[in-house]
């Protein structure tokens, strides 16, 4: 909502300056979004002098004008107008200006080979008259050269952001009332308006008793024998200043009343109405051509204003072309109606129409403002266009009784924390138009009809503190007391895993929760896509089912910037369905390229599965899981290289899946078109991490270390090629948990000197007793036991 200071002063007697008014508006909840110097575009039009006119070298009818804005600089402008001549003072539009009539933006352009810097304007091009016979001629304006042509320059426009609960402030008068209440002046009474109304309104109007009828009341005035014309300058400027386009006196007046009183009106050309007005529900497939030039096909139960022929307008939203007023219009029917907000909103949303009337009706206008609106509009029309007005007719509910609310006297203090006197309460509420009746225990408030937002006592409390001022509330310092843990187990895991992975050299990314379905498909084969009905773009059209979907897109973007060696991770939701809760927190990390690239002392090597395995395992251990409980298998997902990837489960292959890791499948890499194709990744599924029954510190066993000597023994087993090293490690550990402290695999090879299908695994075993120094004999016994058990469990033999 835009207002001007001068318009505001039509309703508010005040000496306050602009700055004060702006501050007050903001402090009572009418947020000032900005102050503009007159209506943007229009301030670009300057009064200018044509210094010299020459003939265009390449066109007979065009002239080359040298134009001055009063300083030393001049502009070359090409003009076709016959009246362009030396010394003429006219209106100049510089390049970049939008011409109101054509809506074309001016550019510096060559016309027949000569550049033109801007344009000299006719009255018609500026939408201020129909005169297109040559450019504007300004007489005795030499002193204004260089100044803005449109007068409201200097007039500051206050752009207000009116919250949806305050429809009353969508009219200048409502804003004035609030300011007056806040002590910034005196709210003016409405002028008494009198004009003759000697005949009854001749057109029959009825509101049909339809179910869901969207119209509550319909007031009208018939004005005959008018001469519609251009609005006078004061009205035009008001309309322009608030961002609307002047059309004709009749239309401008209805718009003026809407902006002034928040009372939308509609004017019909009465001679185009077929017999009578019927307010009814639309019929399915009924069509209607609106003033915006579009044809709408209506659905059931939309509120239409119709005559015998059919729909004339959509109630409270937009009028129709068939009954629109023109300059030739002789007789008009003025409509001032009340339409229910939900009906207006529903219809407008379904048909996707947005108009100033709709914006007001859906927020709720004053149902008792019908007469007020008709009076002001009729008076202005008669004044400007002449004619005679009928008596007003109103069908439907003519007035709505004001609602009342009772409020406990202590409620204000209870909610706000500070007291308020009953005098102040009365003063504030009365100045806002509420009637109050105070008793010992409570007060009764009658709500004015223009405040549909006030529904219960708390709304009154808000009015009071809003006007009293939030700065009056004394703050109560918070107590530094904590009775509940800040984070639960899963939240702690989130926090820990984030920092654990970052500490391994990964950069944390935060990407959208939605992604490109073509990429998402790479990581979620066979599962159902989760589509967004209205995505912002076709490459962000589904909810991600994997962290990798977005991460790989950004990996690619970074690679394309020339960074092939990257480690990125993200922790956040992945989705498995489109119902609330069908999501889980996953940490996904990708690592690409080469380690030690261009290093002076280490050999460069490709990142591989064991890099990401190490990161995954180390992270899980840092998250509090005993390394012994991590069961690694080569179970894998199809977006990993099947031979170079695996899973980590809790305790057994069938235990909860904690993580997966591996090389990203070359097929996926080529589908995403990565420059550096060597990419590995891992994922940690936080929801599967078991919550320990006891606090981590309580799960620590008593501290025992052996004081006796430890011994190491090396073994080399020849074993089936497919046998997993991890399993052998586990088997050896389990041979005797009290003696075997550590099992390391330090060599694996196959090929030369190895039987077909076999490999050699070399294992280093640390043996130590808690009770004594082990003798050679003891050690041999353990060694033999290891050899035997490995043999029976794996078929592997000791290599001699």
């Amino acid at each position, binding site marked *: 909502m835009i207002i001007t200071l001068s318009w505001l002063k039509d309703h508010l007697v005040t000496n306050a300056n602009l700055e004060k008014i702006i501050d007050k508006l*903001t*402090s009572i*909840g009418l*947020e000032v979004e900005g102050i503009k110097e007159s209506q943007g575009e229009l301030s670009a039009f300057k009064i200018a002098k044509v210094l010299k006119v020459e003939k265009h070298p390449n066109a007979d009818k065009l002239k080359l004008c040298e134009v001055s804005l009063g300083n030393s600089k001049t502009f070359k402008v090409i003009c076709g107008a016959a009246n362009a001549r030396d010394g003429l003072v006219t209106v100049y539009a510089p390049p970049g200006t939008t011409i109101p009539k054509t809506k074309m933006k001016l550019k510096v352009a060559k016309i027949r080979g000569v550049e033109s810097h801007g344009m000299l304007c006719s009255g018609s091009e500026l939408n201020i008259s129909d005169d297109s016979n040559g450019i504007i001629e300004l007489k005795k304006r030499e002193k204004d050269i260089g100044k803005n042509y449109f007068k409201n320059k200097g007039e500051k426009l206050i752009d207000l952001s009116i919250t*949806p609960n305050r429809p009353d402030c969508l009219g200048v008068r409502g804003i004035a009332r609030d300011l007056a209440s806040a002590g910034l002046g005196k709210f003016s009474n409405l002028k008494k308006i009198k004009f003759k109304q000697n005949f009854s309104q001749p057109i029959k109007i009825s509101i049909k008793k339809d179910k869901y009828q969207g119209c509550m009341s319909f007031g009208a005035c018939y004005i005959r024998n008018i001469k519609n014309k251009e609005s006078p300058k004061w009205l035009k400027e008001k309309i322009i200043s608030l961002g609307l386009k002047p059309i004709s006196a009749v239309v401008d007046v209805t718009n003026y009343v809407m902006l002034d009183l928040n009372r939308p009106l509609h004017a019909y050309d009465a001679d185009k109405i077929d017999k009578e007005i019927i307010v009814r529900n639309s019929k399915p497939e009924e069509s209607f051509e609106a003033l915006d030039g579009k044809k709408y096909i209506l659905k059931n139960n939309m509120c239409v204003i119709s005559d015998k022929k059919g729909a004339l307008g959509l109630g409270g939203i937009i009028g129709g072309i068939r009954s629109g007023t023109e300059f030739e219009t002789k007789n008009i029917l003025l409509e001032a109606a009340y339409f229910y*907000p939900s009906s207006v*909103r*529903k219809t407008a949303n379904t048909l996707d129409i947005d108009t100033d009337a709709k914006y007001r009706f*859906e927020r709720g206008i004053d149902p008792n403002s019908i007469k007020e609106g008709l009076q002001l509009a009729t008076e202005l029309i008669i004044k400007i266009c002449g004619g005679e007005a009928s008596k007003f007719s109103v069908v439907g509910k003519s007035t709505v009784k004001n609602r009342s609310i009772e409020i406990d006297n202590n409620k204000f203090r*209870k*909610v706000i*924390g500070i007291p308020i006197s009953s005098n102040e309460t009365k003063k504030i509420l009365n100045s806002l138009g509420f009637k109050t009746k105070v008793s010992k225990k409570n007060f009764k408030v009658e709500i004015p009809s223009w405040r549909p937002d006030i529904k219960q006592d*708390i*709304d009154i409390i808000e009015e009071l*503190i*809003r006007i009293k001022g*939030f*700065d009056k*509330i004394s703050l109560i*310092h*918070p107590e530094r*007391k904590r009775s*509940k843990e*800040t*984070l639960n187990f899963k*939240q702690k895991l989130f926090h820990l895993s*984030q*920092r654990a992975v*970052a*500490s391994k*050299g990964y*950069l*944390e*990314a*935060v990407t*959208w*929760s939605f992604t490109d379905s073509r990429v998402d498909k790479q990581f979620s084969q066979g599962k159902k896509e989760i589509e*967004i*009905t*209205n*995505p*912002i773009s076709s490459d*962000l059209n589904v*909810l991600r089912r994997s962290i990798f979907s977005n991460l790989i897109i*950004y990996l690619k*973007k*970074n690679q394309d*910037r020339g*960074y092939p060696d990257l*480690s*990125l991770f993200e922790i956040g939701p992945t*989705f498995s369905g489109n*119902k*609330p*809760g*069908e999501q889980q927190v996953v940490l996904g990390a990708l690592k690409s390229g080469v380690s*030690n690239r261009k*290093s002076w*002392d*280490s050999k460069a090597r490709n990142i591989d599965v064991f890099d990401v395995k190490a990161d995954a395992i180390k992270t899980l251990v840092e998250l509090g899981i005993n390394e012994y409980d991590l069961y690694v298998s080569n179970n894998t997902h199809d977006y990993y290289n099947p031979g170079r990837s695996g899973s980590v489960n809790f305790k057994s292959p069938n235990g909860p899946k904690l993580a997966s890791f591996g090389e990203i499948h070359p097929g996926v890499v080529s589908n995403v078109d990565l420059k550096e194709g060597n990419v590995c990744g891992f994922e940690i599924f936080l929801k599967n991490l078991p919550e320990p029954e006891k606090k981590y510190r309580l799960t620590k066993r008593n501290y025992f270390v052996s004081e006796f000597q430890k011994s190491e023994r090396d073994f080399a087993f020849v074993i089936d090629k497919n046998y997993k090293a991890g399993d052998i490690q586990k088997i050896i550990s389990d041979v005797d948990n009290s003696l075997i402290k550590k099992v390391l695999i330090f060599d694996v090879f196959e090929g030369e000197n190895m039987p077909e299908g076999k490999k050699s695994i070399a294992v280093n075993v640390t043996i130590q007793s808690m009770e004594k120094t082990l003798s050679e004999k003891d050690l041999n016994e353990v060694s033999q036991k290891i050899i035997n058990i490995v043999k029976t469990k794996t078929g592997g033999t000791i290599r001699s």
Partner: protein
Amino acid sequence: MVDLRELIQKVSQAKDKLELQNLKSQFLGKNSQINQEFKKLGSLNENDRKIRASSLNNEKQKITEAINNKLKELENLEINQKLQKNKVDVTLPARERPNGKIHPVSQVIDEISSIFSEIGFSVAEGPDVESEYNNFTALNTPEDHPARDMHDTFYLDKNKKILLRTHTSPVQIRTMLSGKAPFKIIVPGRTYRCDSDQTHAPMFHQLEGLHIDKDITMGHLKGCLDYFVKEFFEVKKIRMRFRPSHFPFTEPSAEVDIGYRLENGRIIVGEGDKWLEILGCGMVHPNVLKNAKVDPKKFQGYAFGMGIDRLAMLKYGINDLRSFFEADFRWLNYFGFDPLDVPTNYRGLSR
């Protein structure tokens, strides 16, 4: 007589270990002068022998000492010569240690959690996919409410019943429905609006706060936010103003501005004369409490919501919201935080 001075002089002038070895056998060996002197001891009477022996031993010890010292000196020299040969250029690059970083949004969430933890708030969460009911209706925003237009909502179904939450407020409803008053929670999380330009991203982060108890007033709300803003920006004095506003789920509602000034194009929060809007808040609307099965006659309290990304931008001088989500390696490196830089109250929030 042995000329001790001369011997020691010779030892000290030895050029290498070989020469020193020769000197050693010359001065202390079988045929050395001192050895000859020892042999002569037998011919002396007891008294003289004692005196002579003591002085000879003394001399011998001094020579031995001189030789040993020289030997050590030569050995050191030798080692140092060797070390000189193995010298490396220490200005060569150190071995690579990968540097990970924490995203500014995560860091700021940790900072915020730490601040609110001090005054007894717990962290609550809710799903990103929400029902239309929890996101709007339960929050006193019925279907025909124009406030819905202010949220450009992503929908997941044709009937517009399932959506991506447009704010973290539905977690208020979930928390209250699943527990018993009092409630004191903050909710950091992802939120979504189908709006995308320089200053809007289709996804952003919000922080919701909710405190419901028997007698929580707007005074408490003011105190809580005053505490938070000062802690977060790590500034003792910040101008702050509450402006009336409207949110369907709070009544009265307010927007909060803080003071700032510009210094070299950077926003300095504090006592400057400009205002910057940072959050919305208010007293929880009784209809919301009713919808969440909390008796508004017994309980009341406040709620607030703020943009985490914006807070991060303000505090750390980041200009472009969209860059938060573009995972540009250079940006992450530049604005990211060291993983060991965990915000805590005793250490301070930021380094």
